[in-house]
C-alpha cells in the first residue's frame, strides 16, 4: 500500500527573491532520489504539499512546467508559520514534497481553443506553469490565440520579470502586463487594475475561447462581470481555488465547498461548477 503521507525528500537547489518587498521567493527543488522525479509527474495547475520536517506542511501551486525537467519550482509568499520558516531556509537544505495533488487546468478541452490567462498578484504561479507549458515548441500549435493579462501592485511586485519581458517580445503570445500605479516614466506597459485591462484588451468570449482566472478575491470579484460583458459563458471561465488544507488527498475534511474537496476534486473549477456549490472559499 502506497503511503500518501510520505513526502519525497528534496534539496533546495536555488532560492530567488522575486519582489522588491522580499515577501515572495521562488524555490527550485531537486529530488534526492532521481526516480522520485518520475513519480512526481504533474500537469500545469496542480499543487503539492511542501513539507518541512518538524515545522509542518503547506499546499503550494507548482510554478514550474511539466516541460521543464530536472527540478520543480514553487513561488512562496511569506505569511504563516511554515512559509516564514521556509523563507529563512538556505540553498542545500533538505525538506520534502508530497504530490502532485489536485486536478489541473483542462488541457484536453483547451486544445484547439483560444486561451486567455488572467492573473493578479502572487496567484500567478500555476499560470506561469501553464504559459511555459503552452509555449513549449511541441505544444504551441495545439492552441490558437493566447492572451495573458497579469497585474501586480507595482513593477517591483511583478513575479518572473525576465520571463514576462521575453513573453512580451514574442509574436505568438499577446502579453498585457499592468500595475495598479507607477510613477516610473520608463514603464512601457499598462497602468490600471486587471479588470479594466481585461475589458480593454481581452478578446471577446466565443464558443472557442476560454479564460483562466487566478488572483485575489477582489480581482476575481470585479473580473467576473467584465468577462460576462465580453460574452464568456460560465463553463468557459476556469478558476483555481485556495482553502486551508492539511492532507491534500480529500480525507481530512476541511477544504470542502459542499461535497467537493478543493484539494482533490479541485483546485480547478469552472465558474459553472462553483455556482452550484456553497461559496465557502
Amino acid at each position, binding site marked *: 500500500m502506497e503511503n500518501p503521507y510520505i513526502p519525497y525528500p528534496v534539496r533546495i537547489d536555488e532560492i530567488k527573491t522575486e519582489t522588491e518587498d522580499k515577501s515572495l521567493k521562488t524555490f527550485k527543488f531537486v529530488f534526492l532520489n532521481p526516480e522520485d522525479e518520475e513519480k512526481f509527474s504533474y500537469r500545469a495547475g496542480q499543487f503539492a504539499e511542501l513539507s518541512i520536517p518538524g515545522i509542518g506542511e503547506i499546499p503550494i501551486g507548482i510554478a514550474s512546467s511539466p516541460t521543464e525537467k530536472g527540478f520543480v519550482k514553487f513561488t512562496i509568499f511569506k505569511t504563516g508559520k511554515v512559509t516564514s520558516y521556509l523563507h529563512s531556509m538556505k540553498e542545500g537544505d533538505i525538506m520534502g514534497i508530497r504530490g502532485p495533488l489536485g486536478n489541473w487546468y483542462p488541457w484536453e478541452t483547451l486544445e484547439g481553443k483560444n486561451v486567455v490567462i488572467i492573473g493578479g498578484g502572487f496567484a500567478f504561479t500555476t499560470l506561469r506553469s501553464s504559459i511555459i507549458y503552452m509555449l513549449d515548441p511541441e505544444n504551441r500549435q495545439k492552441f490558437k490565440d493566447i492572451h495573458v493579462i497579469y497585474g501586480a501592485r507595482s513593477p517591483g511586485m511583478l513575479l518572473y520579470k525576465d520571463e514576462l519581458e521575453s513573453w512580451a517580445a514574442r509574436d505568438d503570445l499577446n502579453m498585457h502586463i499592468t500595475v495598479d500605479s507607477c510613477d516610473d516614466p520608463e514603464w512601457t506597459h499598462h497602468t490600471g487594475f486587471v479588470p479594466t485591462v481585461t475589458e480593454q484588451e481581452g478578446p471577446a468570449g466565443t464558443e472557442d475561447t476560454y479564460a483562466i482566472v487566478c488572483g485575489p478575491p477582489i480581482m476575481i470579484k470585479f473580473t467576473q462581470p467584465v468577462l460576462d460583458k465580453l460574452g464568456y459563458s460560465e463553463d468557459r471561465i476556469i478558476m483555481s481555488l485556495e482553502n486551508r488544507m492539511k492532507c491534500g488527498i480529500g480525507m481530512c475534511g*476541511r477544504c470542502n465547498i459542499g461535497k467537493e474537496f478543493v484539494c482533490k476534486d479541485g483546485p480547478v473549477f469552472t465558474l459553472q461548477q462553483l455556482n452550484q456549490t456553497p461559496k465557502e472559499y
Partner: protein
Amino acid sequence: MKVIRIDKNDWAEGIEKIRKTYSLIGPVKEKFYHIFANLGSGQMPDMEFTNSRISPKYIIYPQSEIILKCSMNAEEEDYKIYREPEDKEYKEKAVLGIRPCDADSLPVVMRNFDTDEYKDPYWLRAFETTTLVGLACDAPCPSCFCTSAGSGPYNHKNLDVMLIDNKDHYLAEIITEKGEKLAEAAGWQDKAEGIADEIAKRKSDAESKIESNVHTDNLAKQPLLDLYEATSIWEKAAFACINCGTCTYVCPTCWCFDIQDEVYGREGFRIRNWDSCMYPLFTLHASAHNPRGTKLARLRQRFMHKLKYYVDKYENGIQCTGCGRCVRLCPVNIDIRRICNMMNSYDPETCTCEATVS
C-alpha cells in the same frame, strides 16, 4: 449462517485462549461510565453495559497518532527525511462487545479513507487486523435511532461475530471468516440448531424498543443550495451552539483530522490528531480570511456534511448510524434528529420546515 452456543461458564476460558493470538479490547467501567479499553491479562470485558460513553472509533483511528518520524540530527542518514515509524505494530486484535451501531460506522468512515486514488494506510491496516465481536442490543437507549439511520440493534452486517445474550449463555452468529477464525481460537464450537426463529423474534423485539427515529427519505431530493441557505433551520440552533467539538469527538462516523509536527530532542514527529469542523481554526486561511468564519457556517457544515453532502456524494445513506451520543452529550442540546427532520421536511417555496423529535 452458523450459530454457536457459548455457555457463560466457558466464556472466560475462551477469552483466555484468544488472548494468545489477539490483543483484546472491551467495555470496562471507568469512573461512572463505560469505555472501550485494552484488557489487561486476566481482565474480562464488562458486558453489562448499554454503550460506551465515547464511541470506540479510536480503536481503529486513535485521537492522536504518530504517522511519520524522522531524525533531527544532521549526522544521521534520515535527517529530515520522514518515514513510517518502525515500531508501528498491527497485531491482530479483537474488540469484544462492540455494538452494531458502532460497527456500522466503520464502512461509513471507510468510504473516506479507502478511495480509488488514495488509501490511508494507518486506518486500513488497523481495520484489517481487527476482528469485531459484537453484542446485540436488547435494551437500547431512549435517544437511540439506529433503525432509521441504516443500522439496528441486531444489525450484524459489519460484525465478524455477533453475540446475543441469552441468560446463561450467548448465542454467537459467526458472520465472516475472521469471525470463524476467532471462534476456533476460542474453542467455541457448540453448534446451536433450530434457533433461527428465536433470534428473529429477539431481533424484532429489540427493534420495537427503538422509540426514536429520523426521516431521511427526502434528503437526496432536496436541492443542496436550498438547504444551505435555509436560515430557518440554522439560525436558532446556531445561537445555542458553543462550537465545542463534543459532537464530533464522540461521534463514531466523524473522521476529520489535523496534522501537526512536533520535535523532541533529536527526533521529529508528524502527528495526526482528530479535528473538528466546529472550530474556527479548522478552515482559517493564513490571510485571516475564514470561509466558515461564523458559528452558523460551522454548525451548518456539520449537519450538511452528514445529512446532505455525504448522501449526495456516496449515495449510501446518511453519515450517521443513530448511536445517539451527540444527542445525549451536546452541552446545549442540539439534536441531530430535530435538524435532520427539519432538513428533510424543508420546503424551499415557503422556507418552512417541521421541527419534530420523535
